[in-house]
């Protein structure tokens, strides 16, 4: 669309909207990918860990091992348990060797006997049954439900995800306010232009369109620049994440919808800019005869 307004280069407001949109899209981009990665992480954890738990049977080694075998037998008869097996003490000790070294020292440690359990269908009911079966045989046994600590992490991660969404909301709100005030400020700069257009017979819609399409162009520009600046940041983050042992941090991937969300940011900025500019100019025009 042909414009009767000064080009951005001719006006002091110039690239202001574009610049602010770039910054806000950058921030929103980080927030969106944070929310997305956390979501992806939670899915991975849920899929890999929820079906297993460990029972620790404390006590003097021989007695504990014997009790662990009873626990295993009881669990194998429990509904919902797919597999249960005593972890051989030698294997548990082998796991500790890299940290503690001395084999004699490890042998003397009062290590609990361990029963590895895999559930067919993890549910609260199954967990209650497991709990009852274990407690009946070995009241001192501790059930290490991985989900307990995992749930805490999941809750934390979810909270981070919500914060990310709040951040996106705040960025969009800041964008709206910025465009409204930038347009209002530029109206003083353009009073003469608006008045002349008005006096030579331009309709309100024509004048408002000139401003809103210009704001759209600036917001799209800013949005794309913000995304382009954000891309290397995202690549760097995922590179660092990939260097971490997958046992500690499962591979992070941004779920597909979040890529859509990232691409939608400049569009959202453009829509906000359009509406804000249009409303602001329409208001200024209503003050004219």
């Amino acid at each position, binding site marked *: 669309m042909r414009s009767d307004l000064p080009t951005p280069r001719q006006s002091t407001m110039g690239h202001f909207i574009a610049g602010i949109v770039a910054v806000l899209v950058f921030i929103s981009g980080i927030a969106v990918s944070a929310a997305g990665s956390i979501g992806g992480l939670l899915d991975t954890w849920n899929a890999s860990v929820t079906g297993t738990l460990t029972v620790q049977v404390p006590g003097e080694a021989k007695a504990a091992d014997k009790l662990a075998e009873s626990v295993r037998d009881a669990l194998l008869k429990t509904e919902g348990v797919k597999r249960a097996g005593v972890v051989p003490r030698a294997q548990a000790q082998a796991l500790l060797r890299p940290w503690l070294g001395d084999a004699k020292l490890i042998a003397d440690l009062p290590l609990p006997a361990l029963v590895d359990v895999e559930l067919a269908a993890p549910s609260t009911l199954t967990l209650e049954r497991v709990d009852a079966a274990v407690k009946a045989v070995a009241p001192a046994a501790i059930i290490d439900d991985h989900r307990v600590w995992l749930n805490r992490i999941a809750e934390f991660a979810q909270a981070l995800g919500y914060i990310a969404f709040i951040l996106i909301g705040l960025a969009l709100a800041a964008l709206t306010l910025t465009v409204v005030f930038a347009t209002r400020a530029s109206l003083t700069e353009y009073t*003469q232009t608006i008045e*002349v257009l008005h*006096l*030579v*017979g331009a309709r309100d819609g024509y004048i408002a369109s000139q401003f809103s399409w210009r704001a759209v162009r600036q917001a799209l520009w800013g949005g794309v620049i913000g995304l382009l600046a954000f891309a290397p940041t995202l690549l760097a983050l995922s590179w660092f994440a990939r260097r971490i042992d997958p046992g500690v941090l499962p591979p992070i991937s941004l779920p597909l919808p979040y890529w859509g969300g990232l691409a939608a940011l400049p569009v959202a900025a453009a829509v906000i800019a359009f509406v804000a500019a249009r409303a602001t100019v329409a208001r200024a025009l209503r003050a004219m005869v």
Partner: protein
Amino acid sequence: MALFRTKTKEPDADPVRLDGVAFRYGNSPNILSDLSLTLPAGSFHFLTGASGAGKTSLLSLLYLSNLPTEGKLSLFGQDVAKASRNRRATIRRSLGVVFQDFRLLDHLSAFDNVALPLRVAGVSEENVKAYVSELLGWVGLDGLFEARPEVLSGGQKQRVAIARAVVGSPKLILADEPPGTVDDAIAERLMQLFVELHKLGACVIVATHNEHLVSRFPFPRLHIERGTLSVLPAVSHIEAGE
């Protein structure tokens, strides 16, 4: 000269009709009071009065920059106070205004300034190019199409302003002090332009202090004094009668 023709809703209605119009800015006393006047199509009037008498204020009512505080103003048979905003925009397209301070847009070239009324009215670029080029040539601005107002002289700016006023072939032409800053040869030519348009049926009002100009043309005067308007016969006719 081929000028672009715009359509008016009621071509037969009087371009200007004032019924008991009064006007003031805000809460200040009336600048104009109880004006009643009808200007038919094809009429030509000078608008005179001392500085500060209210010439620009009266014209601002006619070009719809202000609304009367009292009374009724009709342009082309339409009560401007009751017209919708879009309707008023359409009425403005039938007007050609030369503002006292020109009001050219500094960021647009001479060509684009003149083209503005056609473009906001949705005239095709092809026609815009034809009409604007011809008119700019006619007012002697060949070769200055791309010049910004800031590099133009006062007289050149005024010619751009006049070209912008008449490019839409207006039915009502309002010129505030047009030849004031122009040397006499150009003033003569520009006045001729208004006279031509008046002969083609436009209603023309030219506000001026220039007694010399008023005396050279046989047109009646609208004279504002102490807020009231009187119609005086043409100066040249008075002289002829003496």
